[in-house]
């Protein structure tokens, strides 16, 4: 069972019709940690959105186990973690509700992510980015999850939090055989956490 993008082309409609991604192919197997690097503006986030099934490619396909991903209904085995956790949680919901949205979370995950009980009753505006990102991770780690797409998930956090989050992710990925796609601008980080690093080819 693998996550595969084959000859994917994507661009937003508009005057110039410029393609952001052209003919991109990529595959990710369980247990693999693929690092992706590219200069800014080359469509790394867009690729993540395609792989997560948020967008449908203009041509080419994103297949999970041979099935087009955007057709998936219900809990998706591919989950994306966003760079800015404060946009990925509903500002009007208490975090406990956000966390349990898709079902109960294994208390062990909460413990290992250092999520404190008191945070559950708070609103997102009362927690720091690092604390919110822990919630996003816990929420994404459903029992059905097989792939995580990490788009610069620690770029806005301090180094200690970054190390904590990656340590947790690496352990969890190892234990559950998750496939990770890791986008980061930091070569040192990619080198540290990935099993394989690829450069995204230029779109145009």
């Amino acid at each position, binding site marked *: 069972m693998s996550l595969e993008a084959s000859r994917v082309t994507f661009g937003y409609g508009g005057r110039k019709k410029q393609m952001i991604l052209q003919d991109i192919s990529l595959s990710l197997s369980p247990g693999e940690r693929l690092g992706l690097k590219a200069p800014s503006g080359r469509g790394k986030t867009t690729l993540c959105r395609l792989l997560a099934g948020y967008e449908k490619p203009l041509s080419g396909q994103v297949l999970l186990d041979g099935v087009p991903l955007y057709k998936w209904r219900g*809990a*998706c085995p591919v989950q994306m973690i966003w760079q800015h956790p404060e946009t*990925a949680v*509903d500002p009007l*919901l208490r975090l406990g509700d956000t966390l349990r*949205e898709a079902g109960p979370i294994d208390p062990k995950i909460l413990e290992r992510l250092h999520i404190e009980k008191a945070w559950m009753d708070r609103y997102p505006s009362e927690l720091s980015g690092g604390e919110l990102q822990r919630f996003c991770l816990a929420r994404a780690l459903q029992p059905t999850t097989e792939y995580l797409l990490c788009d610069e998930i620690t770029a806005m956090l301090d180094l200690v939090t970054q190390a904590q989050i990656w340590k947790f992710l690496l352990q969890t990925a190892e234990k559950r055989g998750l496939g990770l796609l890791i986008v980061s601008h930091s070569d040192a980080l990619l080198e540290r956490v990935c099993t394989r690093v690829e450069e995204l080819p230029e779109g145009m």
Partner: protein
Amino acid sequence: MNGRKGTLIFWGVASLILFCLVVIGLFVEEAATVTDFSRTNLPPSLQYPFGTDWMGRDMFQRTLAGLSLSIRIGLLTAAVSAAVAFVLGLCAATLGSRVDACISWCIDWVMGIPHILLVMLISIACGRGFTGVVVGVALSHWTSLARLVRGEILQLRQAPYMLAAEKLGVSRLKQAGRHVMPHVLPQFITGLVLLFPHAILHEASVTFLGFGLSSEQPAIGVILSESMRYLTTGKWWLALFPGLSLVFVVVLFSLLGDGLRRWLDPASAHR
């Protein structure tokens, strides 16, 4: 005392005033139509604070009854308008691009015609009177609110937390209840409250111009248009007090809406 407590107190007082106006107006409706030719054309006094007209009717009672009717029509039309706006906005945002294009076109079309003209046309088509005014005002005031609902929902659908919920397998119904409603409802209610002053003013103007409520009804528009004939003969009180009271009610509603908006708007929420 902080800004929010002040707003809360203001709301309480303003709603109480408006509620009392409606109720008192209903009770004096009978008395307002009583003619008494022994007291015609009296200027304002302690006994008749707003004076009396050429048929000896008490202008204070007529004004109260008129305001009460205006507020009731305002509530009814604003509620109908808001319901139309909500349904159309929701459909435009969720049923795909074709439905969206169609509804957006309707919104632009209705917005393109001056309100007062549209209200008049619809009112005439519906045979004027109470039905005419209510249908006219209700069908012409939903557009901006529909656009607001549409925009808000479209924006929410692209919010990362909505996308995440979708991919986590949260059902559509649960998404709507948990994420969409709490965001849209406050905006919607603010829009609804801000619809009242418009609805009331348009009802009064259409009636004033003679395309709305019939002259037997104790409406502010009727009072004002009748008073025009007597203004030149120095009966200033016939127009001044009913006019001022109308302005008072409209301003009260619009302040209520503003307070609500300030409370809910993120840019000024902490004032």
